[in-house]
């Protein structure tokens, strides 16, 4: 059986699989279903300085092989996340990646500074790409200079490595990646959701109260794979890939594209045991493909040009 442990800035992971931010809350619910320490890491729900209620409902809508969400960064706020959620998570032996959100630079910096001190937070995920908040936010995720500056400011105060979460809703994703690399990012996570909308045929109105929402799920996987394939060849930061992952095969596709770890979002709603199931299947699949260690898969699609020897018998 091949090895699937992975070492990334700040993160020594027993396996490269982690639930994506916003799709796993703070872990409490899933802890009733399985042992959270089976996970490589957990990306917790976005945390903002003050508590946020988020958007009105309906907040989700189904689409073909995907879903839209406009939760609007609902969370109990920095203080309670640290004192209640992260504290509670300490009983589980699993590194936490804290998703940091805000609408001003000051917000981001304040959250990053405080949350990066929490004992079990091993890395930050700088969420400059949430499509579901009206104020400010958008510039952070779409203007390279702005993203770079924010990254720098957050890096200055963070006690742990900073991964920046990129938005796919841009003309030039490489430009964004390079900018945050220059800003001092330790890694990238990509992709956040594509902005989308559904309109109810019966009412004539958008299904989601916020009108637009973020498109996630298998539908967006080809976009994510393309962007990671492109970015991983142009920057030297490790990438945690996400978007539509449902199976161990999907994980390998992300690695081949250039990812070094993978997050699972929407699929947790379809099959709550998807993460432990993938973790169980991964070592055998990596071996079957002829690799001793999963890290050999990273960037395979652009590093080598000849096909693998392996073909399913």
């Amino acid at each position: 059986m091949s090895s699937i442990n992975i070492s990334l800035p700040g993160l020594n992971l027993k396996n490269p699989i982690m639930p994506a931010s916003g799709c796993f809350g703070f872990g409490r619910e899933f802890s009733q279903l399985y042992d959270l320490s089976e996970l490589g890491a957990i990306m917790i729900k976005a945390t903002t300085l003050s508590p946020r209620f988020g958007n009105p409902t309906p907040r989700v809508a189904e689409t073909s092989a995907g879903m839209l969400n406009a939760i609007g960064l609902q969370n109990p706020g920095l203080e309670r996340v640290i004192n209640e959620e992260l504290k509670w998570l300490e009983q589980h032996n699993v590194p936490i990646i804290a998703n940091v959100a805000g609408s001003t630079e000051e917000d981001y910096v304040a959250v990053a500074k405080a949350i990066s001190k929490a004992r079990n937070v091993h890395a930050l995920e700088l969420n400059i790409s949430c499509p579901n908040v009206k104020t400010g936010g958008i510039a952070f995720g779409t203007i390279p200079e702005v993203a770079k500056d924010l990254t720098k400011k957050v890096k200055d105060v963070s006690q742990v490595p900073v991964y920046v979460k990129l938005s796919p809703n841009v003309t030039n994703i490489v430009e964004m990646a390079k900018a945050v690399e220059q800003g001092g990012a330790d890694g990238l996570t990509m992709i956040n959701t594509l902005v989308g909308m559904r309109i109810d045929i019966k009412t004539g109105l958008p299904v989601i109260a916020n009108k637009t929402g973020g498109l996630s799920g298998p539908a967006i996987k080809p976009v994510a794979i393309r962007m990671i394939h492109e970015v991983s060849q142009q920057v030297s930061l490790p990438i945690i890939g996400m978007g539509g992952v449902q199976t161990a095969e999907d994980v390998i596709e992300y690695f081949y594209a250039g990812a070094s770890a993978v997050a699972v979002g929407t699929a947790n709603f379809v099959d709550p045991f998807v993460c432990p199931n993938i973790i169980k299947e991964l070592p055998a699949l990596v071996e079957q493909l002829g690799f001793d260690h999963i890290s050999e898969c990273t960037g395979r699609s652009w590093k080598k040009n000849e096909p693998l020897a392996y073909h399913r018998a």
Partner: protein
Amino acid sequence: MIKQEMCEVISQQQIASHIYKLTLKGELVHGMNEPGQFVHLKVSQGMDPLLRRPISIAEIDHENSSFTMIYRADGKGTSMLAEKSEGDSIDVLGPLGSGFPLNAVKKGETALLVGGGIGVPPLYELSKQLVKKGVNVIHVLGFQAREMVFYEEEFSMLGETHIATADGSYGTHGFVTDVISHNGIKFDCLYTCGPTPMLKALEKAYQHKKVYLSLEERMGCGIGACFACVCHTGDDPTGHSYKKVCSDGPVFKAGEVVL
């Protein structure tokens, strides 16, 4: 204890216009105790449709490890569900949520159960359990039209049962609230499930009474992790406090959350 299990279809039959009754067998039945809980169903193995569908538990049969749901085949998912037949299996996650509190009424007291359309099903198990406890039950069930009426006989066997239809094609013409006031129905506790306008009307009409309402909301995870299904709380109607319909509900005490 929430479980995920491939449950076998024991029977499926159409019982009214677009309304189906589906009985599944599975070990997770033994985790079902409260009436008003629901399950989250994956109606196809592939990704079309992608998400699960929340459906209430209408009847629990611990002895046979089976449970029954009643649902309306309308959109893609429920239409596909209606195509399942004996021997097929369905991926079920549940039981989910917290249901109707039985201890809100005592033996000998009277419970009024008010259901609207596809909100009627969870009241059936509730009624059975209340009757077993020795509670006197009265049912007021509202439907759109005659051809959508279901389970009148089943409810009648448990207690007094009134039917209202919106178009007057069957039972009383009008809303469930009309039926209650016209008949001067008295009760100690009201349990209800149905469309939000109905819940609102009942909440308003019986502010001084013990009222429990079962809510519906679009769901992602169904287990409390995604924040898709939140509502404001009654004591902080515009603030940050919230309840999740899927895990804190779907049943709430009147006033607990903003409808």
